[in-house]
């Protein structure tokens, strides 16, 4: 009896629409996040993550509307990230029907926000999203990895492992670790990065970035990931890609739902 490895599709949502669309056959509106959430639920997703990439705050209401409609129809856990700055945004997201909120830049800018949110709602609602890459140029960190912002374009000089540990100590319930180096390569997860973070924290770890084929997933779990998250592989792969990924994980000896 043990908890299953979670397989989580991530949808980028801009002003209420899925960015780039998703290649599902026989889906009338591939840009509707709610329709896609349904599809992924039926396909065996264990959770869903929406990343709100809406640039203007005036269109942020559309995201809340998407969260509300999704929560009313899809009965698996929903995490929403993007634009989360403090207790107020988290409260709104939870009331609309999200189960967890993920935070990234706002926590780097002001780490105390982690304590504030988790004191208010409990650790389980807050996911720390970390965009990490190997240090470049003159930058150096003890682990060799630094935290980045702006989708990996700007280094912060903050040690990625130390940051994950600090955030866990402050109360985040989970860490979403995205490898900027591996992201988009389709050559597999950054296993060294996963091992380093796993060794530093005891909260659940979601690995992201680099997956191209189902066989890439079991090594990430061996390296210490409790869950795996991917976007384009699910969006543009065959309709049964989640089942294929789960089969690969199961064949490697790990429990799946």
């Amino acid at each position, binding site marked *: 009896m*043990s908890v299953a*490895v979670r397989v989580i599709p991530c949808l980028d949502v801009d002003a209420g629409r899925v960015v780039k669309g998703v290649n599902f056959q026989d889906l009338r509106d591939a840009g509707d996040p709610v329709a896609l959430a349904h599809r992924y639920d039926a396909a065996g997703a264990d959770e869903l993550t929406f990343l709100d990439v809406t640039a203007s705050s005036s269109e942020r209401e559309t995201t809340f509307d998407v969260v509300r409609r999704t*929560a*009313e129809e899809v*009965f698996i*856990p929903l995490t929403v990230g993007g634009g989360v700055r403090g207790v107020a945004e988290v409260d709104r997201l939870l009331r609309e029907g*999200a189960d967890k909120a993920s935070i990234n830049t706002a926590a780097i800018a002001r780490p105390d926000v982690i304590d504030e949110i988790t004191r208010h709602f*409990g650790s389980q609602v807050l996911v720390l999203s970390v965009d990490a890459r190997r240090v470049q140029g003159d930058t150096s960190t003890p682990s060799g990895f630094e935290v980045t912002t702006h989708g990996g374009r700007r280094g912060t000089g903050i040690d990625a492992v130390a940051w994950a540990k600090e955030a866990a100590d402050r109360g985040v319930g*989970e860490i979403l670790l995205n490898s900027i180096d591996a992201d988009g390569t389709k050559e597999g997860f950054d296993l060294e990065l996963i091992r380093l973070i796993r060794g530093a924290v005891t909260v659940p770890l979601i690995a992201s970035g680099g997956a191209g084929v189902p066989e890439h997933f079991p090594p990430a779990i061996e390296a210490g990931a409790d869950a795996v998250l991917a976007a384009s592989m699910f969006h543009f792969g065959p309709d049964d890609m989640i089942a294929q990924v789960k089969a690969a994980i199961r064949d490697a000896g790990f429990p799946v*739902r």
Partner: protein
Amino acid sequence: MSAGPAEDALPEAPADAPAGIVVDPHTLGGPAPDPEGRPTVVVLDYGSGNVRSAVRALERAGAAVTLSSRAEDALNADGLVVPGVGAFATVMEELKAVDGPRIIGRRVAGGRPVLAICVGLQIMFERGIEHGVEADGLGEWPGTVELLPAPVVPHMGWNTVSAPEGSRLFEGVEDERFYFVHSYGVQSWEFEVAQPKMAPPLVTWSEHGARFIAAVENGPLCATQFHPEKSGDAGARLLRNWVRSLRPHPAPRPAAEAAS
């Protein structure tokens, strides 16, 4: 918690009512009987967190659902759902602010169904210990809620359960996985059956670092540590099992309406 007449939130019988008449609480506020005959369920609205999913999932399970923090609603619905997210002590404080302990106690004493979810299950036990802070629970069941001794906490995700023979809640979903998210749990069960004739509570277990209680079915009081409203089809079936066990109070007969 005592529930003397002075602090009783149920409305008194009308002053002109004949002495000794039994007042049907269903006529004294709370959700109106559902015209379609569905059981009425109130989700107790007493804190923050996602209660929208619980409301919608219960509706899909066949109930007429109201989200409310009013005592008359919570007392008089056919079923009461007590959600719970956050710290044990905080949940207890928030629950007290809406008179929750007395509402739950009265319902259970009267044999009226209550379903508690997640921290809702935890506060049914005697006490919770989080970060060294000890807080009293409602004490419906003996036991202490403590940190799970697992390498990775919170316990987050889909886990299997071991339901006992005769469970009504888990009928048809005994072998399914349910969605858990919690760091604390009750790791032993020492319920003394005071009356040999009483059916003993049914306890369902799961495991994360140690065996812990995943659900309890104890007469009118049921509780799950996992989130059925987030557990997909398996959770939907479990909620349907619970909603089907509720007995809807009948809508007023047309004749009675015509007479009034």
